[in-house]
């Protein structure tokens, strides 16, 4: 993974009416890196993405893609970008192939050979001559991916790309994106509300709430090793653990302790020696979902869902 910057979002703001939807957003994206874009509904994910691809105009700030400003050099900046915005809507009355020809004509230097190559890549050679209206959702997603790859993009933007795909389709899609990122050194920016999806796919996650970027973190960042211990009587177990020197946090029916694996056997021996009955001792990982809810406040999501 090279660390070359391909996209720079600088002080991006968007005001619609009197409401500031995006507030002073700064973010860099690097080649070969898949960045997830998470946020509760209405946080400004789609607005940000639409500004990045030229569908909406920033009120303030700028987006540089490959060093070229989307405001002053739209054609230059978007040249090497591939886009899938939500469900890729195609011309249903034309064949998949004609759709690809249509979009290829809008880029410089996309040859017929390249179109065929992309069709191979997404595995659509058998049905490409059929009308898009007859395709299943999965097929349309693949065609959507094909059109985004036509111009050999250095930067792929995907807004909710796995919407409507079945689990096998999602898995295939994920593998494919990883491959593209690694082999072609493409930067990928994916927005999704599927947390598990983002966790599996991305190297890095940007979290947005109320139009502000609240956190950027690497997915495989070393986590503090934690263990969950469930024992009875609980009070006695707590006492023993504290005597050993662990910091003890109550969690569900037991306790969480921050410690490295090598201290666990000793702790178990001491607990048993003290006459405590052990029901469970297991490593505890906070999932992205827990972190996400912790950061954005669960209420926000609940609220969004009841709308």
């Amino acid at each position, binding site marked *: 993974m090279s660390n070359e910057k391909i996209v720079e979002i600088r002080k991006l703001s968007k005001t619609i009416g009197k409401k500031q939807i995006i507030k002073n957003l700064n973010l860099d994206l690097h080649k070969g890196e898949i960045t997830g874009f998470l946020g509760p509904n209405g946080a400004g994910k789609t607005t940000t993405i639409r500004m990045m691809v030229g569908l909406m105009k920033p009120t303030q700030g700028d987006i540089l893609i490959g060093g070229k400003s989307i405001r002053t050099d*739209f054609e230059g900046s*978007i*040249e090497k970008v591939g886009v899938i*915005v939500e469900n890729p*809507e195609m*011309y249903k*009355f*034309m064949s998949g192939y004609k759709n690809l020809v249509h979009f290829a*004509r*809008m880029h410089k230097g996309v040859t017929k050979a390249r179109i065929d190559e992309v069709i191979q890549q997404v595995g659509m050679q058998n049905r490409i001559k059929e009308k898009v209206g007859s395709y299943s959702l999965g097929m349309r997603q693949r065609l959507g991916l094909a059109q985004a790859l036509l111009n050999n993009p250095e930067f792929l933007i995907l807004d909710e790309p796995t919407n409507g795909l079945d689990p096998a389709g999602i898995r295939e899609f994920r593998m494919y994106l990883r491959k593209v990122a690694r082999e072609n050194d493409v930067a990928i920016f994916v927005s999704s509300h599927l947390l598990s999806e983002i966790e599996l796919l991305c190297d890095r996650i940007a979290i947005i709430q109320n139009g502000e970027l609240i956190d950027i973190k690497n997915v495989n960042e070393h986590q503090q090793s934690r263990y969950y211990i469930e024992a009875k009587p609980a009070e006695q177990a707590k006492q023993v653990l504290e005597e050993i020197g662990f910091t003890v946090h109550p969690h569900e029916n037991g306790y969480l302790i921050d410690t490295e694996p090598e201290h666990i056997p000793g702790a178990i021996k001491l607990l048993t020696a003290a006459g405590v009955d052990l029901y469970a001792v297991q490593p505890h990982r906070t999932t992205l979902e827990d972190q996400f809810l912790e950061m954005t406040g669960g209420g926000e999501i609940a609220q969004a869902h009841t709308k």
Partner: protein
Amino acid sequence: MLKLIQNEWMKLWSKKATWIMASLLIIILLANAGITKWIESTSPAPEMAWQEMEEMNLMSAQDQLQNPDIGSAQQDYYEGQAAIAEYRLANDAEPFKVESLQQQMLDGHMMLSLVTLFTVIVGAGIVASEFSQGTIKMLLTRPVKRWKILTSKYITTMLFALLFAILTFISIALFSWIFFGVGDGAFLVWNGSEVVEGSYWAEALKLSALSLASTWMIGTFAFMLGTVFRSSSLAIGVSIFLMFVGVQLVFLLQRFEIVKYYLFTHTDLTQFYTGFMPIPDITMAMSLIVLTVYFLVFMVISYWTFSKRDVTA
């Protein structure tokens, strides 16, 4: 730009509706020729000889010339009509019958309102349908500036209108040749000092070209509405409504000065050559200027909204 127009053309003809419109146009023209033929064959022999008709023409032209309210274009027209009628009577030069290839071609420009109708449908939908299908976001996220995309769509609409006009012209020629054949008679024109024989093909072409001004304006208007409101049905409805009512309004506004700046006073450019002018004191030059101004306004509104709009659909 050529590739963009190619794209629009491909999309246009990939739609069934376009082929239906083309077939409909040909069927209507065929039916029109067929009905004319049928009426001719079932009706009794004409009550009047052509000489009587020409005498009536002569009288009505002279009547018109007495009218102090006619404009200079009308003056020229009726002088020509009177001279031609006199010439025909003096030299026994028969005019074309209605049921002849020649007269059908000369009247062919009236059929171009069909082309206007279809152009309105295409122009109204060419931008609006991208929004309603959701394909607009695929279209605008390409390294092509928005004004170029809009231009390609506008040119495509106008190419469509031109193609349909040519199709109309050829169909009328073909069907009237099949049904009526080339009739007797000569096409006469008044060149200002004498009556000479002219080419009816050239005259038919001239009138058709002038009629296209109305197709162009109403088509552009529909294109603007479709671009601004993103709804093709609204744009089609309003445009077709105006196409019929707009001309009637000329008569209502007749007494006011403002009528001279009203679009539909000027859309029919053939009025300078057919003598029928609701507002007599306008000139061709004035009409062209007014039409150009309206055209520029329609274009500015279309381009401005299309380039500035945030796409949220």
